[in-house]
């Protein structure tokens, strides 16, 4: 299969940010995730939880709540503003101040007419949702303490608000408080501490469910304002609650890292007297769970340990498959690392800065090589302003670095990299049209920069020593205006492919600067693609683990791709739970395609037969044991290497060495704050 020299890179200290809020939109099957650093991500629930959209955050912008109103996404944070997002172009649309101090919670009603926010000053503010903006309507009765949590009655006529030591029920019509439900404080020493009602849920039958800092999940009746039942879930806090759509299941996230499920079950089968009963407990987190959401077939939870856990509810899954398996999402489904293939440089993208590293050198032979020169950090580039980096790239020659924040595109030239001690860089002025980019890509000869921008268009800028010049814009003939998240340029500089979040892949001819063709739209999102250097075929990987090869010149799928579609892929391949993040080609062997996801590195040999479900998929060890003659007959197209774990990026350099950037999860976990100490048996 060939030998590669591997640079095993573990100095990318990427730290995923903790999850603060989740919001599920049942109609479009998207779940929005707000992180501690202020970024908002949108995952597609029915497309294997592919991370479709990322809206980078800003410094000092703590999001406290997320809410969908129709297909519009709103967030509110401790900076006191309500933000609406432009999901098409993946950026902030506008932010308006609520003038009530820090906002702790935001909730939209089911009718999609109003947003309610709970403020530090004790007011619940109602905003009317208009066509293009939101408009402040009025305040409900002001309370003495801050509003921590809010929940609308499904009819939209009442709001329950969780506060310190109590829950208030408001009539939306009058704005007056109807009931005041007092939550008990803890016993013993915690008696003096306030009981924080972290989360409330208002059910259509008038039951209010609250989760508080005492560790209780309490059920209240809104007619009488009395406590119906209380469940002691944990010794710590119950931080988040979420109810299923048909209100027969409730999940509660605790600061112990457990998710507790309650179900509305009739105690005697066949009779109608139902009760909320505590049933299952899921423990997939090590730290506080700050947000839970019960979606159609699963429970999604996220917290301080920065992983998004999708725990399927098997009783609601129709067919058990890889799509309905337990899923833990640690890393973004975008590339945070770009490599200058010809000069051995790597650019690491952090939220607030970039790091440029030069790879080390090695000598010797054997399975592990002696390091002759250590890798060096050449550049630490801090972002100007408060915005975080959206995307970045380094040119293959290693002379250009480009990055874009949510609002601005910046470009740096690196000169004299051979004498890095005299590092000198210059910020070139960019044409105004290039002000912001969703995705960036250099041509393989580093002469052009491609920048994906609004309306699914791609701007081209030519690069020279003197500077950067805007050349033209590539526009798709038709289709959606969703933001482009992937760009791929061909080796010969003739073709450019772009993929957007509506699953469309457009191919442009760079010589004529016209749209060449469009790949037939597949139901799943493209996670990685690349153009073959010799055959000029576009190789695409999809979120549902399918793969396609499309001949650009013939404007049709290749024979190999049709064979794959006809024969189907191996079960083990389809059951992987992370998307492929990069497609590379081995110039030495044109039939080889190199792919990677978080857990493995795979070389597909297109000249070998495809495995069917009966053949052994991971057959490297078996092949090793066989004599040379028999290997041929037993080998198949997929060669999987699982030596590396928690891979962020794999890139094939021009000197035939592989760069594997790993970020071990143990390292991530060791940098997290200490979790709540729990007594464990026999410790």
């Amino acid at each position, binding site marked *: 299969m060939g030998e590669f020299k591997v640079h095993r890179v573990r100095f990318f200290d990427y730290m995923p940010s903790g999850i603060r809020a989740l919001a599920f939109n049942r109609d479009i099957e998207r779940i929005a995730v707000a992180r501690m650093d202020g970024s908002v991500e949108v995952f597609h629930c029915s497309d294997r939880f592919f991370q479709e959209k990322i809206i980078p955050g800003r410094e000092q912008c703590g999001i406290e709540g997320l809410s969908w109103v129709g297909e519009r996404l709103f967030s509110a944070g401790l900076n006191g503003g309500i933000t609406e997002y432009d999901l098409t172009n993946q950026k902030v649309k506008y932010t308006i101040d609520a003038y009530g101090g820090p906002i702790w919670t935001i909730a939209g009603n089911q009718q999609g007419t109003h947003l309610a926010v709970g403020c530090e000053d004790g007011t619940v503010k109602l905003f009317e949702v208009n066509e293009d903006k939101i408009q402040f309507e009025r305040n409900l009765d002001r309370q003495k303490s801050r509003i921590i949590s809010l929940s609308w009655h499904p009819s939209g006529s009442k709001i329950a608000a969780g506060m310190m030591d109590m829950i208030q029920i408001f009539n939306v019509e009058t704005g007056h408080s109807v009931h005041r439900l007092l939550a008990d404080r803890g016993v013993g020493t915690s008696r003096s501490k306030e009981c924080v009602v972290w989360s409330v849920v208002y059910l259509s039958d008038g039951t209010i469910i609250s989760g508080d800092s005492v560790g209780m999940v309490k059920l209240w009746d809104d007619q009488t304002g009395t406590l119906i039942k209380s469940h002691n879930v944990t010794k710590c806090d119950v931080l988040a609650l979420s109810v299923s759509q048909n209100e027969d299941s409730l999940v509660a996230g605790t600061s112990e890292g457990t998710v507790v499920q309650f179900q509305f079950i*009739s105690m005697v089968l066949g009779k109608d007297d139902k009760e909320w009963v505590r049933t299952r407990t899921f423990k997939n987190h090590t730290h506080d769970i700050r947000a839970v959401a019960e979606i159609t077939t699963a429970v999604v939870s996220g917290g301080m340990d920065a992983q998004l856990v999708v725990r399927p509810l098997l*009783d609601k899954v129709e067919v058990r498959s890889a799509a309905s398996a337990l899923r833990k999402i640690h890393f973004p489904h975008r590339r945070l690392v770009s490599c200058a293939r010809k000069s051995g440089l790597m650019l690491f993208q952090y939220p607030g800065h970039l790091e440029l590293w030069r790879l080390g050198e090695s000598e010797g032979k054997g399975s592990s090589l002696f390091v002759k020169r250590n890798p060096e950090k050449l550049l630490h580039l801090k972002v100007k302003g408060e915005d975080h980096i959206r995307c970045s790239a380094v040119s293959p020659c290693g002379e250009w670095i480009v990055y874009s924040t949510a609002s601005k595109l910046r470009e740096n030239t690196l000169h004299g990299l051979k004498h890095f001690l005299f590092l000198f860089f210059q910020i070139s002025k960019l044409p105004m049209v290039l002000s912001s980019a969703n995705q960036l890509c250099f041509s393989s000869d580093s002469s052009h920069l491609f920048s994906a921008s609004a309306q699914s268009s791609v701007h081209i800028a030519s690069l020279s020593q003197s500077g950067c010049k805007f050349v033209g814009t590539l526009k798709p003939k038709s289709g959606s205006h969703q933001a482009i998240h992937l760009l791929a340029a061909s080796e010969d500089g003739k073709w450019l492919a772009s993929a957007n979040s509506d699953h469309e892949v457009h191919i442009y001819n760079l010589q004529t600067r016209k749209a060449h063709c469009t790949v037939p739209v597949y139901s799943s999102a493209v996670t990685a693609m690349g153009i073959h250097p010799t055959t000029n075929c576009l190789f695409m990987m999809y979120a549902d683990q399918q793969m396609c090869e499309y001949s650009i010149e013939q404007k049709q799928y290749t024979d190999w791709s049709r064979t794959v579609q006809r024969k189907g892929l191996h079960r083990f391949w389809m059951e992987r739970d992370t998307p492929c993040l990069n497609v590379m080609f081995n110039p030495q062997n044109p039939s080889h395609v190199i792919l990677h996801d978080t857990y493995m590195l795979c070389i597909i040999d297109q000249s070998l037969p495809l495995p069917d479900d009966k053949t052994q998929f991971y057959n490297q060890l078996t092949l090793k044991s066989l004599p040379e003659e028999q290997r041929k007959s037993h080998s198949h197209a997929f060669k999987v290497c699982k030596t590396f774990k928690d891979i962020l990026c794999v890139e094939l350099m021009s000197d035939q060495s592989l760069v594997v950037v790993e970020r071990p999860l143990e390292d991530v976990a060791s940098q997290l704050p200490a979790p709540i100490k729990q007594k464990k048996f026999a410790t």
Partner: protein
Amino acid sequence: YFILCQSRLIYVCFYLFVYLFSVLGFVLCASGDLVKVYSTRTEEWLHSLQGHTNQVTGITLNPANHLQVYSCSVDGTVKLWDFIDGILIKTFVIGCPLFAIYVSEKHEGVLFLHVSMCFQLVSVHLPKSAEQEVEAKEMSAVSSHISKNPSCTAFGRGVRVHFFFFYFSLKATDKKGAKNAFTCIACHPTDDCIATGHEDGKIRLWRNFIHKKEYTYSTQHWHHNAVNTLCFTPEGTHLLSGGIESVLVQWQYGADNRKEFLPRLGGSILHISASSDGQLFCTSHSDNKITVIESSFKVCGVIQGLVKGDAVLTDLMIDPRSKALVLNGKPGHLQFYSLLRDKHLYNLDIVQQEYIYEAGLDQFEVVKAAFDIKGSWLATVEERGKKSSDLEFFLKLWAFDERTQSFVLNTTITAAHTDRIISMCFSSSEETTMLVTAAEDSQFKAWCQGADDQNFWSCDFVGSYHKLNPTNCSFSADSSLLAVSFQEVITIWSPDTWEMLTTLCQPPGVIRDLCFGRLSCSKYLLGTTTKNLLCCWNLLTCELEWSTSVDVSKLQPDPFSENVAAFSYQSKHTDLFVFKPSEPRPLFTNKNVCSEKVHRAVFVPREEPLNSCDESTQWLNRSQLYFLTQNMDLLTFSTATEEDRMLSSSKQLVIDDSVAVTPFYLLLGKHRQQQQKLNTQSHPVADKPQQPQGSVTIKELLHTPAHVLPAASVLCSMFVNSFLISNTGVQQDPLRYFVHINIFLFKVKTLVNFPKLMKYELLYL
């Protein structure tokens, strides 16, 4: 000579199932082929329901009549009992071994039984018939492949389908190394909720289980090992669980984190039962104990049988004072068990450390114990460390305290030897007590009490012989000689001067057992070797008197006669020989006593000597031989006359078609019947002395509750009549000498082809 047929396989029996009827104040438990009835108030054994011929595997209350119970047994019958009076009402013959029984209130006249074939669960319609013994043939299979463990089946509350029957095949969820196989199950009495216990100690509460997919469960975890049993209280407010931890856990139903504990109950909990009014709970334990617990979670009664530990490491001993059998009991304890009164007397804590009920822990165990001849001293050895590298042991000496009537620790010797103690014996003289210990450090030591007023024990003499490891030691009957065997050599020492008198040697083979003859045979020394040799030396001539090739696994001299019992194991069965060292022919030989090896045996002195003239039973006149097999069955020999006395008093319900069965009928009618029978008896047993009859009447008068007795005037003449000496004067009242031997876990078994005068008693541990 005769050959015995193979004895039946009997399971080690326990209080497997406990059924508690607290309104009536009874606890029923299955034990061997008996169902025993105890009182919850007095913890006393009341009577046992006797009639099954094999192990009783299940008891359940008759849902139609709460004064009756069904019991099922491996012998293939289901019996219906009146458990208050101990009367067998009916026997249903099923015909194949039964392993569990369940009844449902919704199904009158139907029993659910586990039958042997592939653990099938069948329902049996009970035929309505007046006969005593009915064959129940109407069987229909309910389901198959059900775990044999009765905890794995439970009845639910019927709703639509009339009943739910829940079972789980044990391999059901055993995946990914998670030990979540089901171990037990219980159904909530009112709600549709099933509790299951799992091998990893978790308890799951299942709901919505009639749906194929939308079932749901919640998990609770406290037990660190498998949950053995689960039980809901009758109102369903609490769930009780128990396991090896011997902690009874009470979970509040609905508020699942609230739980109460009742720790240190003894052995691991096997079964829990709650009384129908919820006032009492009852747990059965692996150490043969039933604990009665109030609903306020206080222990209010303990019914203790002969404690069955994991292994009996000590010899069987007789406490010379109380004549109680002494052996390992609770972990770290010696138990004193009165064989005569068949009662557990007390436990003596030897180790004096908390025992942790967890598998795989290396904890101190009593491995050796010895009494001196007066019973005023007890020596014990406790040891820890299976491997010799981390061996740790203590030699302790206990003095009998007359004031407290128990043993008090006198001396603890931490490093008595440098290696494991192999053998230990007290000198048998009355004047001086001396202890000799022989250990693997190739030394034997003699220990004496200090001369000063502080009567602690200290080492008096250290002896060794050619650096050989000693294998056994023994004092002669008058304590004038001490024999210590060193591998193949027996050395004879004089304890007064500690001078080695002579050595005896009969290679090949290492000496295993060693004992001196008693009384008239005290000039003989017997020894067994590992090369299957039984040798007898004459100590006067220092010559080998005789030797024979037999593989003796245990040599046990009777301290009250010249007899020596030798158990030999060959070709998978054990034979017993009783002989006098002076006579080459054995007094008594019994082939195939049992199929396991016998390593422990003891002669227990009788309170009153028998005066049997039969040659083959003479050796049992003064003492009785008890022995312990590898399966931990305690067995004994008894003579036919004893056996006759023990003839079951089990009452039979004889239904006369014309007369309604009332207590009056039972009382009067039975007596009448007996008299009829007596009158028709034609062949009197001549050599028996005439006995005053009437004990039946007296007994029944005295034992029947006053309020069910007929008027005194009715009984008067009968009562007076009973004192008159019968003019026939020949018949023998079988109940005259009836002394009910209330031996715990007691079993009488009659073997085919057994000699007429010899019968077995089996005592089960």
